[in-house]
């Protein structure tokens, strides 16, 4: 079963592009990463899926239900963590959690208590006195306490310290193991690489790559680091170039023979050629205008 399926999903704000003809499929039970820089259309996609904004074209289904006609039923089975959580002022965390459960007509008190303990969140604190990280924790409990089938997380770790991030991802992994689909939007690529099984890269409102994280990492581009002196001016396919202390490092997607010729003509004291990490691949995709590497 598909947890999310979008077909030519489009959202324009007047003349401004939000997303444009977005096609995306997330299978049930996946831990899916949704990668893109600010303004690429990640939040617009999520907000459209959740019914906060209406699509201007195309369509989408979440858990097999239409996002326009079956919005309420979708929200019953989805947990959403916004990038910046805002709560009603003067309420205590426990009241916010109770309100959230009440709006779902569920008693989630046992799960809420368990999650608060794991995330070290004091439910008696007032939400307007919480730090950004603690507000995030309260939002996490809101998103998880009703044990949804699909979790939609928009930049989930912002504000969380490394220990809390680890605990948070432990919780997500436990949920994923029992069948919860996790849809994680992020621009922190290491996060996606570490936790997700599949990922999609969005650029200017369109999906430019969607595959397993492993396959996305298997690109023909290589990270090349050369110690010594070489003239790279004749080489095509170089990007993300950095130079320091007779060391030059770059992402190379051109002809390997041409590279070897240039290296042979130079004075190389040391050389390393490695597979790039997801961050480099991301830059590669963005640099190439969205063509498959």
């Amino acid at each position, binding site marked *: 079963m598909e947890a999310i399926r979008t077909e030519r999903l489009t959202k324009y*704000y007047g003349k401004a592009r939000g997303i444009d003809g977005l096609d995306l499929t997330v299978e049930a039970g996946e831990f899916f990463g949704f990668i893109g820089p600010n303004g690429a259309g990640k939040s617009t996609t999520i*907000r459209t899926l*959740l*019914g*906060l*904004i*209406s699509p201007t074209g195309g369509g989408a289904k979440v858990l097999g239900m239409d996002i326009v006609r079956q*919005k*309420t*039923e979708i*929200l*019953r089975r*989805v947990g*959403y963590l*916004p990038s*910046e*959580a*805002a*709560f*009603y*002022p003067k309420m205590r965390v426990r009241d916010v959690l109770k*309100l*959230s459960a*009440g*709006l*779902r*007509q569920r008693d989630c008190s046992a799960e809420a208590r368990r999650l608060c303990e794991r995330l070290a969140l004091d439910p008696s604190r007032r939400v307007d006195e919480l730090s950004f990280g603690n507000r995030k924790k309260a939002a996490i409990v*809101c998103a998880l306490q009703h044990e949804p089938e699909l979790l939609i997380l928009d930049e989930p770790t912002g504000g969380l310290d490394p220990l809390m991030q680890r605990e948070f991802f432990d919780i997500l992994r436990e949920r994923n193991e029992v069948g919860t689909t996790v849809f994680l939007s992020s621009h922190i690529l290491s996060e996606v690489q570490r936790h997700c099984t599949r990922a999609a890269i969005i650029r200017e409102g369109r999906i430019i790559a969607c595959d397993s994280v492993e396959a996305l990492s298997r690109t023909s581009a290589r990270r090349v680091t050369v110690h010594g002196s070489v003239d790279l001016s004749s080489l095509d396919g170089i990007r993300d170039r950095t130079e320091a202390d007779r060391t030059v490092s770059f992402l190379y997607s051109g002809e390997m023979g041409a590279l070897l010729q240039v290296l042979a003509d130079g004075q190389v004291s040391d050389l390393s050629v490695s597979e790039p990490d997801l961050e480099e691949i991301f830059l590669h995709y963005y640099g190439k205008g969205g063509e498959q590497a």
Partner: protein
Amino acid sequence: MTLIRHELKRGRISFLIWTAAVGAMLAVCIFLFPEMKGEMEGIGSVFASMGSFTAAFGMDRLDFGSLTGYYAVECGNVLGLGGAFFAALCAVSSLSTEEKERTAEFLLTHPVSRARVVTGKLAAVLLQVTAMNLIICGIVIGSVTAIGEPVPWKLIWLLHLAYFLMQVEIACICFGISAAIRKGSVGIGLGIALVLYFLNLIANIAEAAKPLKYITPYGYCDAADIVVSGTLDGPGIAVGMALAAAGVAAAYLHYTRKDIR
């Protein structure tokens, strides 16, 4: 019910302050009546020399020396403005606050349809307006009894019913506006209540501006008309309720289709 309870809880401080303020001001006016009663001759001649303003407040047709005349003018000013301000503020911020304080994302990602959100919030506004009017009615009746005057039941019910309907109308119009705006709600709400109030004053002063009485809900709340006729202005109320229904319909139509940013 969760949403209505939540809304009532959120608005309780504002509700208590406005109810206490309007109730206290009405009670003070009533407690001043025995003292004022003896000085009415002088006051009457002062009012008579105020020209158009006497007509604007309906004082040319009311006996300020009787409790009914005195209360009708005081009630018109205190409950007319105080009640309308509360109804306007309560309603105009009801939906818009969610976007202004960025809590709309929290609320609308729960399994509650937009129509149910509108219904819940409207119910909470109307419940607060109703509760305020009931409490104030109780304070007024208690105060009149305390000064030893017979309670003018018919007048009190008619006046308070008219003001209640006026507040409902203003609340519903402001509620419709609330669905469309994201900020600036307080200024808009107070502005609407004040403009409607002054439209009625103008209608009372200038003959040519009489039709304005059918636009502003203060038209069917004119205390002098109610005291003199002993009835409410049916057509005026019908127009008012039609405007209220239009405000509510606008809220449903707009909010259920609105993009939440």
